[in-house]
Structure formats: C-alpha cells, structure tokens
C-alpha cells in the first residue's frame, strides 16, 4: 500500500460520507410527500402520470396488494424486455444490423434487468441495438431500481406506523423514486460523463485508419466453408493486413449513468466500465464508483430520518462501513502484492512513481491497482456488478473479496433499497439474538419482534445461500462444465483447477444475490447458464421481497412498544457490533467450505509455485 492508495481510499469514503446527509434529507422529503425543491418542474409530470394511470395517490395498499403490484409490474417489465430483444432485428435504431437474441439469452437478460441484477450474458457492442439499449435495458435500470427503493420505503413505513393495515401505494413510490430521485441524478451524471469522453450519439460505428497497419494470420476457408488444413492436419493460414479500426458508438452515457446510480451494473459495452468509451478518465471513474454507493448510503440517513431517530440510520451505515473499508484495503493489498511466479520471470511489479505495479492482468492503466480494487469492493458491496477490471484475473485473495461481499447477501450497502431492507432483516436477527441472551421479547424501533417476523427474516437470509450453493453444486456436477457449440463440445470454464471452480461459484454468488458481476471467463451465454442463472436471479429477488413486505405489513399492524429497561438500544456501538457479527457469522459459516475449495486452495497453489 502506497501513500497514494490511502489518499484515494480516504477521498472516496470521505466524499461518499459527505453526500449521505444532503441526499438522504432530499429522499426523506420525497417519500413523505413533502416539498423537495423540484416539485415545480416535476410535479406536473407526476400528476399527469397518476391521472392517465387512474392512480389515486392518497389511496394506500395492504402488504399483499403491494406485493402483487410489485410482482405484476416486474413480470410485465420482463415480458417487454424479452419481446424487444427477440424482435430487435425488425425494430429501428439498429445501425449495425444485429440479429435477434436467442430465446435463452433474451430470457436471461430480461430476468437479469427486471430483477436489478444486470448479469451481463451478452456483449453490448456485438449484440445489442441502440433501441434495445434504451427501451429495454435503460428503462429497467430505472424501474427495477425504483422498485427496490419502493419496497424499502414500505418497510420503513411498517416501523413508523401504528395499528394500521396499509403500507403505502406502490405506484406512487415507484413514480416518485423514478421521477424525483433517479432521473435528475442520472441527467447530471450522464452529462458529466459525456464531458469526460463517454460517447452519446446515434451514429453507426466509425472507421479510422490505423497509424501502423498490423498483419494477422487468417485461416484459409476452403470450398465447403470449413477451414482448410494441410497434409499434417494443421490449419493453413494467410497473411492479412488490417489497416482500419472500428470505433463503437451509441447512446452510452445515458445508459451508464443510471446503470451506476440504480446499482444495476449491466454495461453498455462488453467489458463494462473497463471500456475506455464507458469510463475514459480517472474523473469519470471516481464519479461512477461514487454513484454505486451514493443512493444505498444516503438511504440509511433517509431511514433514520423517517423513523424519527437519525442515529438509527447512522448505526446501520457505520456497520456497513466497518465491513466495507477493511475489505477495500484487503483487495487493494492483495492485488498490489502481485503474482510471485510472474515476478520470477523478470517482471517488475513494484509500485513506484513510474508505474502502479501489482497484478495488472485484466486492469486498465489509468485506474491502476487502487481504483480497480476500490471499484471491485464497491460494486460487490452494493449489488451493482459493473466492473472496471476483470475480476477473473485477480489474485486468489483479491478475487475472494468481491465474491464474499456478494455472499454476505448484498446487505453492505447492497442494491438501492434492497440492500437496506436486507440489512434490516439482519438487524431483526441481531436484536432477536440479543433478546435471547437476556431472556426478553426483543423490540426494534418500538415494535415487538415475534415469531412471525423471525420466520420471514430467516427466509430472507437463508434463501440466497441456498440458491448459490445448490446452483454451484448442480453446475459443477456436470451440467455447467461443457456445452455444445455447433458440432463441437467445448468447456465452459476458461481456467483449469480451483480457479475454474471459482468461476462457477462466483457466477451463482452473483446471480443468487442479484449482483451481476462475473468471473467473465466462464462461458455463460449458453442454455444451461442462461436458464439456471435466470432462475436464481428471479428467486433471490422476489422470494425475498415478498417476506420483506410481509414483515412490513405485520409491523404496521402492531402497537408501539415504548423502550423499557430491558430494551436493547439500537443506535450505539454494542448494536453495531451485534449487527456486524450477525452479517459476518452467517456469511462465514455458510460459505467458508465453498470458498476453501476455490480461492483459498488457489492461493496456496500460487504461493507454492
């Protein structure tokens, strides 16, 4: 770790903390229907939407009705994305003439975007038309994020309301999240990104003349359309001189802004935010990585404000930071140490004023080690899943950090809305455990936590690990190891040994926690993974949202219980320790065996090489 590493980490965390209060305050006003400063401009749009949709913003829903609305909206959104991807060859704004996505790929991408996972099974610049990027992907980036925020706000209402049956109106929460929070922030960020060099246009790809033409060996294709071979069976090649380069174009900045702010993460280009047109400068990188944690961080403040005790929000945020910051330092340290066998070959991996050094395979020079590491931790702490470096090429321990952050259940910041409601489930478990120790009925924020809440919270906490571990087991038992490509059978894994297994474990950890990042060497755009990961994403999104809303309904119905002598205060250090303990213990106990087979074995192999 160099001095500059500490400066960049400190800057990132510092600026993030400075945004928590202003944005948290703003969102608190938005979700309580109070004037927020943008009403004059956006109010007319909001009211027009309600009028056309026949929504009475004052009429509220019970939890089951709210959950039904969420599901219906998500299923419809899924169907719409699927249709566009299947029909993109017949729709406009397709200057590169891309064909329709295959059914399994379209299914996977549609589930992925409707569940706010944004697992990227496709390569953007080689498969997606401009229309698909806008109408299918950008729209779900907005509304799936807004859905997550809406459900969180419903849960917060569960804590603040007393003896009532309703938890708010989903259509209002959805509209206000999109129109007042996500849209204005996206406009600002998109324009800032364009100023740095992110492309935003509707032109076809541009051709430029290479300064130095390069030659390549091209296989000679015989009469039958198959590559020709010589007498010894080797492919015959011919020299081909390449003198032009294609520059990919399109409306990228508008998509990328919401991809970061909505913790979506599905990239415009294949390599996501490592692409120089998606993330051209250190400044664009800083803005993007800040945007990943911006809303999840500020929502903690919103939560504290809405429940009437801001310290409650800070306690949750501090618990998140206590887990997050050491893991950032861990991944940066691991990557900076480099790879012993490379150093032995005469490669200089020492950090100096002249180079960042470290393990630079799969990393961009302008980001170096520290910005790659901060991003890897932030994108997996939040359920964002965008990348600015290739996690598959990380050192074993460096790659373990993002994997484990996902396996913790995406509650350290987590997805917009979904991260905090996931963390509140852990808070319920923490006060319950504390209650058991002193033999009293636990309470949280003035509400008694009883058997029903505990059952639902346990479901929320246990379903994702179940999906991850069963999915990984099924895949490595054979189904996920080989796939048919034309007449050949090819391997899905890009790396041998323990690292290949890590690719599979990472994929299911990502889908099973709605993250979306990948050890991208895994060939996942084929029927088995497209289907299995699609199902994993669906279960982990909605089988969690429904019990969470059930808790919201149950809490709203309860009376207020004033704090007594035996109540555990939930805004102090003791609570932070208990909460962090609950998250880490569940995460460690569930996943240590699985991690031991992958990154830990690989680490031992690497140091022994």
């Amino acid at each position: 770790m160099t001095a500059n590493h500490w400066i960049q980490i400190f800057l990132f965390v510092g600026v993030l903390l400075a945004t928590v209060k202003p944005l948290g305050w703003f969102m608190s006003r938005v979700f309580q229907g109070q004037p927020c400063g943008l009403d004059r401009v956006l109010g007319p749009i909001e009211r027009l939407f309600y009028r056309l949709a026949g929504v009475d913003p004052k009429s509220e829903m019970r939890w089951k009705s709210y959950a039904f609305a969420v599901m219906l909206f998500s299923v419809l959104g899924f169907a719409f994305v699927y249709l566009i991807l299947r029909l993109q060859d017949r729709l406009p704004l397709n200057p590169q003439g891309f064909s329709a996505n295959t059914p399994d790929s379209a299914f996977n991408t549609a589930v992925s975007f409707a569940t706010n996972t944004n697992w990227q099974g496709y390569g953007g610049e080689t498969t997606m038309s401009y229309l698909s990027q806008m109408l299918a992907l950008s729209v779900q980036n907005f509304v799936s994020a807004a859905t997550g925020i809406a459900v969180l706000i419903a849960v917060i209402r569960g804590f603040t309301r007393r003896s009532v049956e309703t938890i708010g109106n989903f259509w209002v929460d959805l509209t206000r999240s999109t129109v007042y929070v996500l849209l204005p922030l996206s406009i600002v960020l998109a324009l800032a990104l364009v100023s740095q060099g992110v492309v935003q246009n509707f032109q076809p790809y541009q051709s430029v003349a290479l300064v130095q033409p390069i030659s390549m060996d091209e296989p000679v294709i015989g009469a039958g359309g198959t590559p020709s071979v010589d007498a010894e069976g080797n492919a015959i090649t011919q020299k081909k001189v390449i003198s032009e380069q294609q520059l990919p174009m399109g409306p990228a900045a508008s998509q990328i802004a919401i991809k970061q702010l909505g913790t979506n993460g599905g990239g415009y280009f294949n390599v996501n935010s490592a692409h120089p047109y998606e993330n051209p400068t250190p400044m664009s990188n800083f803005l993007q990585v800040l945007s990943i944690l911006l809303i999840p961080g500020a929502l903690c403040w919103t939560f504290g404000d809405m429940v009437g005790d801001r310290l409650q929000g800070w306690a949750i945020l501090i618990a998140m930071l206590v887990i997050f910051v050491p893991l950032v330092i861990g991944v940066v340290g691991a990557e900076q140490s480099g790879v012993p066998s490379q150093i032995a070959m005469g490669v200089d991996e020492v950090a100096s004023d002249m180079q960042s050094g470290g393990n630079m395979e799969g990393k961009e020079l302008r980001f170096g080690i520290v910005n790659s590491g901060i991003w890897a931790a932030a994108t997996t702490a939040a359920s964002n899943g965008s990348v600015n470096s290739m996690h598959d090429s990380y050192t074993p321990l460096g790659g373990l950090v993002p994997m484990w952050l996902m396996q913790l259940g995406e509650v350290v910041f987590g997805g917009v809305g979904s991260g905090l409601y996931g963390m509140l489930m852990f808070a319920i478990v923490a006060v319950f455990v504390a209650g058991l120790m002193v033999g009293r009925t636990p309470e949280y924020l003035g509400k008694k936590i009883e058997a029903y809440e505990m059952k639902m919270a346990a479901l929320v906490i246990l379903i994702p690990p179940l999906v991850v571990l069963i999915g990984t087991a099924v895949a490595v038992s054979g189904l996920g190891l080989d796939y048919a490509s034309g007449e050949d059978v090819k391997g899905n894994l890009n790396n041998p040994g323990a690292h290949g297994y890590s690719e599979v474990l990472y994929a299911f950890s990502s889908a099973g926690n709605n993250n979306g990042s990948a050890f991208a060497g895994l060939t996942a755009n084929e029927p088995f993974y497209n289907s299995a990961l699609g199902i994993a994403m669906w279960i982990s999104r909605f089988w969690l949202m429904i019990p969470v809303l059930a808790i919201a309904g149950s809490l709203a119905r309860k009376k207020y219980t004033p704090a007594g002598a035996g109540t555990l205060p939930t805004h102090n250090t003791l609570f932070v320790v208990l909460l962090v303990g609950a998250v880490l213990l569940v995460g460690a106990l569930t996943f240590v065996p699985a991690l031991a087979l992958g990154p830990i074995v690989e680490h031992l192999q690497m140091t022994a090489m």
Partner: protein
Amino acid sequence: MNAHFRPCLVLLTLLTLLTGVAYPALITAVAQAVFHHQANGSVIMREGKAVGSDFIGQAFDGPRYFWSRPSATGPTSYNGAASSGSNLGPTNPALLDAIKGRVEVIRAAHPNETKSVPVDLVTASASGLDPHISPAAAEYQVGRVANARGLSEERVRELIAGNTEGRTFGALGEPCVNVLRLNLSLDTEGGNQE
C-alpha cells in the same frame, strides 16, 4: 387485484417513454450541443483524416513506435468493435506461458535494458483497448525508439513528457502515457525514415 392492471400497463408505458425515449434524447441533444467532440468519440484528425481516438488504443509493434500493452481482443488485438479481457487467472499456465513469451520478445527488442520489464508491457488490459502505458514502460522503450528514428534520447523523453497525463488533482488515477498520441507526435517530429 384487478384494479392493478391499468396502472401497471399505463405506468410501464409512460415510464418507458420518459426514461427510454425522452431521457436519452435529452442527453444526446445536450451532449451534441455542448460536448460535441467527446460525445462522438474524441476522434483525432490528421490532415483531414480520422486516425484514431484519444481513448481507444491501437496495436504497435514496429521498431519506430512505442508499443502498446498486449490486448486480448479477437481476432486481432485492439479490435475496437469487440472489447475483451483475457480472463485468465493468475495460476493459469496459459497466462504464465503468454507472459513468459512476451518477456522474451521485449527483452530481445531491448538488448540494452537490464532492468525487469514493467508489468503493463506484458499483461493484457481489461478492455483490450487500453490507450495507455505507464511512464516506466515508456522509459523502457526510449533507447530503441530513439535509435530507430535517429533522435536523441532527450528529445524522445520530451515527447513522452508532453503526452503523459498525471493524476487528476494530483490524487486520482495513475500517471499514464497515451501511446497513440505519443506515436503521432513522433511521426510529426520526423527523424530518419524507414
């Protein structure tokens, strides 16, 4: 429950129009008006001809040019239409063999350099389109390029300095040298011909 169908359909339609049509259209309009150069790919022009972009690297392997990082795009390196990293893990023999081969090529081309090879010269970037090399990697190649072009090493170092971007505000990112820009300024500089 049936009461939900109308709001659901109507709101999905309206939000699609707002965030999928109006929003990208607004951003494009403003971007094209205010940041025309950046929004269209920051293309570098020489004598009326587009020769590249500030942000998209190109492959260089000739003796008269500074070399870019290895690239994992296919079928050729630095294929702008299909970004890709190698996704090879640190213990993968394929990666170690590739790095070993690259070290040998670099060493053979720079017989006078005795130092270890800077890591970015032998590892593929995440995008396969990385426009930069480190100042260390540029310094490593100074002798070869100066020799091939008949320029003094001081002059070549001045050109490197002119195409080096420091950390933003002295803190963010890493110092890096734009390879395409550097090679273009070498071509303008002249020196002896091939």
